């Protein structure tokens, strides 16, 4: 209880003083030896691709990949963030406080199994009074489903404002059902590449649909505004020409 209060206080403190940043979190431990019998370079590659694109968009990126990605670090980073990327296990986990399921993801914390989770109510509490995220990319299983509570916790309504329509200054990407990692890498590589090339969020999503992943292995979804260039609030939309 005391830990929770201290954490909430620390989060609130960060939220009131820090400028909007982009937070990048990736679970490496659970996807690698000795936890499993193989080596996965995907978490580092995915985090690096997200970080590079977010920096290109003008964000100051704070990245925690591997055991440094703990529950405390995650909530501290998510609280003030204007953009967020997470790669980990995701699901609709049991929320003991509310006695029902909520949505979220597991942290790394150097744990092979049963690592702590970050779930929607914790994020809602941490982000109290903070503007909705500009860009949220939740690279996990299940958090692109309509029943996911993560978009709301990040301040993003589950609606699509298509091309030409006025909408929120937000864009959320997630995957429905089980997401296979080779498909994830293809989709996200194409998404971030299009973003670096100056595409709007919706156009980058459309381009990523063309990326040659197996449709049976990945079901991406988005909500927010198609036309959004997810730059930090104070910056001007820029058009990068570098790849």
């Amino acid at each position, binding site marked *: 209880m005391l830990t929770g209060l201290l954490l909430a206080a620390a989060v609130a403190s960060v939220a009131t003083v820090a400028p909007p940043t982009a937070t990048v979190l990736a679970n490496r431990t659970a996807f690698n030896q000795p936890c499993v019998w193989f080596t996965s370079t995907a978490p580092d590659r995915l985090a690096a691709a997200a970080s590079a694109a977010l920096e290109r968009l003008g964000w100051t990126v704070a990245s925690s990949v591997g055991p440094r990605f703990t529950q405390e670090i995650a909530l501290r980073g998510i609280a003030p963030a204007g953009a967020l990327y997470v790669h980990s296990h995701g699901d609709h986990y049991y929320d003991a406080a509310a006695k029902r399921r909520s949505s979220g993801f597991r942290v790394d914390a150097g744990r092979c199994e049963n690592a702590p989770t970050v779930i929607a109510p914790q994020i809602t509490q941490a982000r109290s009074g903070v503007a909705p995220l500009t860009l949220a990319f939740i690279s996990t299983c299940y958090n692109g489903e309509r029943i996911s509570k993560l978009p709301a916790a990040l301040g993003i309504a589950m609606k699509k404002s298509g091309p030409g329509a006025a909408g929120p200054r937000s864009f959320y990407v997630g995957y429905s059902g089980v997401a296979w990692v080779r498909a994830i890498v293809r989709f996200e590589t194409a998404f971030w590449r299009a973003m670096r090339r100056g595409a709007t969020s919706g156009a980058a999503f459309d381009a990523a*649909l063309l990326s040659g992943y197996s449709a049976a292995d990945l079901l991406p979804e988005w909500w927010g505004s198609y036309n959004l260039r997810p730059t930090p609030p104070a910056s001007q939309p820029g058009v990068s020409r570098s790849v």
Partner: protein
Amino acid sequence: MSSSPCIRRTTALLPLLIAAACAAPSSALAPERTYVVPARDAAANLPPITGVAAALLEPLSTVGLRAEPGELIALESGEERIEQRLVDVNGLALLTLQSTPGGELRFLARADVAYGGAALSGAALRSRALLHLVALRLALPRGTPIISSVAERRMVQWERSVNGIPVPGDGTRVIMSASGALVGIAIEESALAPASGKLRSAAEAKAAALTLLPTGTVLTGVPRLGWVHLGALAGDEELRDAPRRLAWRIRGALADGRPLEVHLDAAQLALLGWDWAR
């Protein structure tokens, strides 16, 4: 049966070379790429992007748009392409094309295609996808496509197969709105490595997988043959600049229920890579 794509554009660079390439057997293992001009010079010889914009079934008005000079880019696979873009006054690309230096269109993406409209049936989507390909004078893939819905878009995909064995992710993919408006086209054809020996049976592959996987792993379903990318360190990182290998693809679940797929060389049964779910 093969749905190997080969793109014909009558106005493309070096029509004789392209026609020769299109006439090559669709089961060719490593497509030859013969360039008679340096790649950097090829952009100047591609058809103007404004012509492609006008040829679309839903033509893109070029009023107020600017065609950027073609640019040589390298994909993750190492493949070089010429990218052309039609941008608005804010610099946002409304039409992006990628062609091989030989003039074959491989990728087309439109931005700002509206959602909604009357949803087409699967059969109508297939017909519409073919019409989009015809409008761009692209080769028509054969066979029955896989049609799926993703984020309120529609995906019509003709997966490439060689001698009846699928090449996952390769082939012709057409993305449309629910009402059939074109969002994009991608055509992929990876190089394939020669077979490395006599094909082993599915039962042998399954037995080999069980010896490799940790105790408690359960294999599900029937092993399937497929052309896969090697994994770096026999892991999950696709080495897309290397030819694909013929492999047994075997799905299962780890002891804790997490799904996984291993790829074993179809002849040697050596581990080539794996894939798994998050």
